[in-house]
């Protein structure tokens, strides 16, 4: 943890501030959310790394997708993701958002979350332990340092593609496009 290195603060203050105040959305999908309470309370205490749950997506910049995403939840996931202020980081938690996991042939869950919203990193496992969240956070710090946590930029760039994928699953979306696509016009 390089939070106390003043030279880094002078060199890249924005990156440091984004690294050490990751506020996670209270968004509970699937079974993985049971790992979040021990992570944020006295046993593992994520607050010492600046990771706290935020009550609304407007305050947050970290989105943890904790478990399988049903088609109905996907609608809420997309709307929540679009409400978060940029820069924002998304982490898929558990094997279900990666490739469907044990629900891979279910009729109402999606298999690959990365097709619908951009994901910056994955935590594999069924279920990952709370320690895995800390490993993921440290990896996310490295990615932010190297400018590789650019999911929000990818979303902006390939928005037409993401929107098409979303419409393929959800049908006609009732909200207007987040970005006007400049490339087609």
């Amino acid at each position, binding site marked *: 943890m390089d*939070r106390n290195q003043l030279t880094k603060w002078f060199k890249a*203050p*924005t990156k*440091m*501030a*984004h690294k*050490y*105040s990751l*506020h996670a959305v*209270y968004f509970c999908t699937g079974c993985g959310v049971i790992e979040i309470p021990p992570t944020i*309370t*006295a046993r593992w*205490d994520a*607050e*010492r790394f*600046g990771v706290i749950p935020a*009550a*609304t997506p*407007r*305050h947050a*910049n970290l989105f943890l997708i904790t478990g399988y995403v049903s088609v109905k939840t996907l609608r809420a996931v997309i709307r929540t993701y679009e409400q*978060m*202020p*940029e*820069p924002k980081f998304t982490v898929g938690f558990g094997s279900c958002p990666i490739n469907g996991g044990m629900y891979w042939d279910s009729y109402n869950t999606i298999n690959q979350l990365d097709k619908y919203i951009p994901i910056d990193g994955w935590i594999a496992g069924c279920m990952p332990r709370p320690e895995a969240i800390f490993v993921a956070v440290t990896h996310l710090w490295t990615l932010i340092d190297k400018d590789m946590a650019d999911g929000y930029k990818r979303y902006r760039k390939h928005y037409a593609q993401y929107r098409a994928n979303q419409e393929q699953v959800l049908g006609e979306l009732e909200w207007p496009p987040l970005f006007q696509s400049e490339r087609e016009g």
Partner: protein
Amino acid sequence: MRILWLVLSPLIALAVGLFFLGLSRRVMARIHWRYGPPLYQPLIEIFRYFTQKGSSHGVLFGLGIVLSLAGSIVVILFLPFGGICSMSGSGGMLVVLYMMLLAPLGIALSGGEAANPNASIGISRKLMLALGYELPFLLIVLAIMTHYDTISLVDIVSAQRETASAFASFPLVLSGIAYLLILPAMLGMRPFEVVHAPQEISSGPIAEYSGPYLGLVTIQHALTTFIGISLFVNLVWGGAGNPFVFFLKMLVVLAFGLFVNAAFPRLRVEQAVRYLWRWPTLIAFVGLILVVTLGR
């Protein structure tokens, strides 16, 4: 010299308020047997908010925060901070009483502009809670102003420093106790945390703020914490001769608030108002009657 203090005192208040925010998170963490974030965590967060891309919900959304910040800064100018008071007019107490309403009003205006149902619930709860604590608070202030025969905050502090603080003098001790009972409500701490209630109404009035707007709201929260605690120290604990002692007294009051915050669950808003209109109001009213009948 005076102009220097006019510029400096809001900055000092901001620094102290942010320190209090960081300290309170740290102390709460230690009470939970956690390590907690570093003391400068609020600074990191404010910096993050200002570098994010916020979304506005209308003109009033931004102006409301500015209004509440302006109200808080004016109140700070009139508050003595251990012998330093940048605007020591004769009627300081009345200005403070009026201007203290601007801060929640501004947040209500701009939060209402966002049209989020959680924000509306939070605003109505804030107004109910303010209705609850303003009544005992006005009785307390009336008793103190009657006892010291002045409406100037600086004179109240100097009168208390000449004789004894309100806590140590007989009829005023009742007002002091009543103030202690409503202090968590004025600071918005836990038994009265009905306004922000993150688990219940997703942080209430500030639910729709993002980016720089949230940064301004956090600054406003720091200033409000400073005002609440320093008003308590000035009115019933006799202020202080120098800023350092004043700061120590504020720390003690903050620690009291934090222990109450850690020990109690959240009340519902009608329970809060029922409590506020019963015991603190009764004690403050008895205190006022004693002050008026006994004289000085």
